[in-house]
């Protein structure tokens, strides 16, 4: 696959990247190979010589990890996408809560749990922890967390009524059925949610650069927006 480009992308980018790859192939005739997994797994694989040309991470941490080891072309690192954190509840009569300091999270949860990604290793969980800490709600929330391995399952917990509340990305909430967004976290309550991408060290061929450029272009931006990402 001398012509092709291999992209290692965080699993949450699956659908968007698939569409973009299709569009790129239609336009340039060059194939794009993708591999979706947890950012951590992908980063480790790149560290161990994976045939990846481009890495699209779901958080900065693993990109930093590679950068520290000079495994990416530093100059090509771009924080391409952003996202927002929302509070969701099972679908039902529409309701809203204002997310602020002093929110009575305990009452909202009752005996139930708060579903989100595992703060230890899932980016959405980490952002949720930051936000809850900022809002002073962390001591209430921490013992009640249902830490999912994947945002997708945090959504499912809420959708299936196992958890009365969940914290997920707005992109996930947008396409999920069975849940409703009942509040948005103020952007200042957590670090900027960012999806950085970069070309893997020594892989900066013309073909890869061309796709890198395409990802930065407007056609890709349209696709990303369609899936709810904010594009920077």
């Amino acid at each position: 696959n001398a012509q092709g480009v291999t992209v290692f992308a965080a699993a949450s980018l699956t659908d968007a990247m698939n569409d973009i790859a299709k569009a790129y192939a239609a336009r340039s005739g060059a194939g794009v190979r993708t591999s979706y997994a947890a950012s951590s797994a992908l980063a480790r694989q790149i560290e161990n010589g994976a045939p990846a040309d481009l890495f699209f991470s779901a958080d900065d941490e693993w990109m930093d990890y590679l950068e520290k080891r000079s495994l990416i072309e530093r100059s090509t690192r771009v924080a391409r996408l952003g996202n927002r954190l929302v509070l969701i509840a099972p679908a039902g009569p529409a309701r809203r809560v204002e997310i602020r300091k002093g929110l009575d999270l305990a009452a909202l949860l009752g005996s139930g749990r708060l579903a989100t990604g595992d703060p230890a290793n899932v980016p959405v969980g980490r952002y949720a922890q930051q936000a809850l800490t900022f809002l002073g709600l962390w001591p209430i929330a921490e013992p009640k967390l249902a830490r999912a391995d994947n945002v997708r399952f945090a959504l499912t917990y809420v959708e299936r009524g196992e958890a009365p509340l969940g914290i997920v990305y707005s992109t996930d909430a947008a396409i999920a059925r069975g849940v409703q967004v009942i509040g948005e976290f103020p952007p200042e309550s957590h670090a900027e949610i960012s999806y950085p991408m970069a070309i893997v060290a020594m892989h900066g061929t013309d073909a890869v650069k061309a796709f890198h450029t395409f990802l930065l272009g407007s056609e890709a931006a349209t696709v990303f927006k369609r899936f709810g990402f904010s594009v920077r």
Partner: protein
Amino acid sequence: MLTEFELQALWLSLKVALRSVAFALPFAVVAAYILARKRFPGKVLFDGVIHLPLALPPVLVGYLLLLTFGIRGPLGGWLYDAFGLRLAFTSVGASIATAVMSFPLMVRAIRLSIEAIDLGLERAAATLGASPLDRLITITLPLMLPGVLSGCVVAFAASLGEFGAVITFVSNIPGETQTLPLAIYAAVQNPDGDAAAARLAALSLVLALSGLIISEVIARRARRMLGGAADE
């Protein structure tokens, strides 16, 4: 020597695995007996259903468990209404997940043992006045002990290692559902978690090894007891 966190995960893993083996065993014995001895239409399908958890990705199995045993699921709803029992996010749920995942392994081992039993012995017992149930208890069950043991060991080890189904079904709640693999996973997902992961993995190994040693000792006794091969 061990941190409290590690101790907790260790203890929980042990609890979950043991309970899982205890849950699965009676069903596995029955299923293995049916598969080994009965002929009926749809037997292969029955066999297939038993192997299902093996052939599906564990995450999917966890997801299906959630759909079934979740509070809105057919079985889970009934359990909750009837007994106030909730499985999701509990260590009992974790045991169920590991039991389901290791069930086919247990059944296989026991079935193999039943098939190795000389039917002539059961017939002899019948001529001595033992009813089918009596035969099952006094002849077949003791003679299938090696398979039961082997099945328990393999199920115990598999339960110790089970990750995908557990994290998906009951999420990752320290002290409640965070077994060793979940803790290891969390550690590995962290760029600097390698050392922690290694410690946890070592713990997991020690646990598995202890199980093995105990089982070997029992197996050796059982073989003696069953009058099996020794050095002539």
